[in-house]
């Protein structure tokens, strides 16, 4: 008999190697949360700089009160899917509020951001269609593409000319064409050059979906994302986003102006065959979206904090993932062992960042990935810079690993 788990031996060995260096990257436990930017990890108070908690809204008193009130009033869970017993007035209220915020005619809420991509991509594209996806797309996009059964063509990251070439190769084929981009790419923090892609769209004709997971609430004068920042919202047919970043809860959405948009509710298995979000989760998301709409100072604060960290890293001479200020700031490491060592040294010294290694990164990069929060104080940002100076710029990672 073949043991089904044998195939995972290479990955198990890789984690065992990391653990033998005294580093357990997936075993980090927040023993106690103190604030959006602080937690107790390994018994020590640690600055959190890898949480995607861009607005630092997770401990907002109004959001917590809204969640508590919804749980008291409507219970702990909905015990059903949106197409059965799981649609409450709250779910509809959140969809309406989001549609207003996004300035889109239609919005559908999902239980997680991952499911939002699975649902939207599999609902929009079918086996006769072709999806063109950016090479650096998030796994939820790849998985949504697979679920759709569509033909999948990958184009070079952020390269509109490369997309154009690949569209040309598929001219005359049956079925529709969907192009998928992200507002801010989660690993390197770079933005899609939307204007370039819109030019290709005008010449070739396709429908465009933008995943604004990391840019929703963050970019643009109205906080609606990259398309808002670029002034090109009319060119983006479908928007996907998540509540687990700037909204500080869990869930996701798909939105658009297409007159037939609502039919997707009956065509997306990841929407139809899962329980809807709990009342508390929906209510906190609703309260948070209202705050994103009303309180633009949060975006301003995030921009200032991002610029402070970016500038500090630049002054240290660190090799960064992209040269534009973004709330995602990734530092390149020469190899996996060094990255593990530096990551561990940073955690021990009191700052948690994400470690990202191949195949989860583009171009085989090993990254120490920071995400900035509007809730970070100047002192916290300065401390993160100081520790990166001591550990990363000074090249202490390898030394720590070797004891």
């Amino acid at each position: 008999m073949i043991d089904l788990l044998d195939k995972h031996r290479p990955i198990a060995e890789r984690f065992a190697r990391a653990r033998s260096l005294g580093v357990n990257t997936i075993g980090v436990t927040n023993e106690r949360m103190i604030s959006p930017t602080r937690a107790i990890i390994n018994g020590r108070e640690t600055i959190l700089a890898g949480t995607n908690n861009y607005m630092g809204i997770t401990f907002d008193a109004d959001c917590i009160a809204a969640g508590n009130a919804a749980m008291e009033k409507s219970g702990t869970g909905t015990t059903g899917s949106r197409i059965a017993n799981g649609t409450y007035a709250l779910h509809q209220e959140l969809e309406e509020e989001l549609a207003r915020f996004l300035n889109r005619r239609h919005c559908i809420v999902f239980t997680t951001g991952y499911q939002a991509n699975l649902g939207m991509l599999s609902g929009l594209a079918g086996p006769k269609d072709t999806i063109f996806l950016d090479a650096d797309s998030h796994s939820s996009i790849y998985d949504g593409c697979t679920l759709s059964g569509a033909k999948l063509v990958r184009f070079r990251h952020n390269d509109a000319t490369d997309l154009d070439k690949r569209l040309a190769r598929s001219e005359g084929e049956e079925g529709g064409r969907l192009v998928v981009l992200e507002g801010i790419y989660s690993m390197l923090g770079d933005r899609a050059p939307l204007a370039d892609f819109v030019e290709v769209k005008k010449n070739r004709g396709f429908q465009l979906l933008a995943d604004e997971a990391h840019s929703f609430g963050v970019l643009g004068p109205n906080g609606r994302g990259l398309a808002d920042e670029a002034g090109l919202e009319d060119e983006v047919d479908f928007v996907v986003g998540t509540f687990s970043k700037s909204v500080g809860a869990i869930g996701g959405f798909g939105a658009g102006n297409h007159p037939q948009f609502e039919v997707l509710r009956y065509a997306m298995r990841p929407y139809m065959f899962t329980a809807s979000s709990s009342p508390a989760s929906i209510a906190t998301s609703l309260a948070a979206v209202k705050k994103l709409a009303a309180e633009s100072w949060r975006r301003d604060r995030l921009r200032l904090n991002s610029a402070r960290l970016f500038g500090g890293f630049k002054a240290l001479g660190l090799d960064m993932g992209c040269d534009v200020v973004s709330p995602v700031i990734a530092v390149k490491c020469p190899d996996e062992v060094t990255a593990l060592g530096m990551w561990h040294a940073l955690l021990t010294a009191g700052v948690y960042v994400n470690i990202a290694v191949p195949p989860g990164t583009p171009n085989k990069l090993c990254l120490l990935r920071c995400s900035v929060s509007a809730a970070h104080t100047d002192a916290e940002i300065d401390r993160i810079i100081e520790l990166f100076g001591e550990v990363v710029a000074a090249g202490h990672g390898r030394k720590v690993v070797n004891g």
Partner: protein
Amino acid sequence: MSDTIARICKLLEPFNTNNAALSPQTDISTDLNIDSATVMDFVMEVEDHFDIELPLNVLAEIRTIAELAEAVEARTRKA
């Protein structure tokens, strides 16, 4: 060795970091220890070299260099 296989082997060189010996039966992912993302990057080079489209769903069925060559030839003939 067919011309297509020889050209694929040439394109594979920069990805074959362990300098493993290549044959038509070489499993591109497991024999060369190349991760899934890198295999996709390699296939992009193949697409551009032959000016064809090798969709990811077709790629899912391909394991060896010979199978890849067969898929490439089927598509160059179509073009």
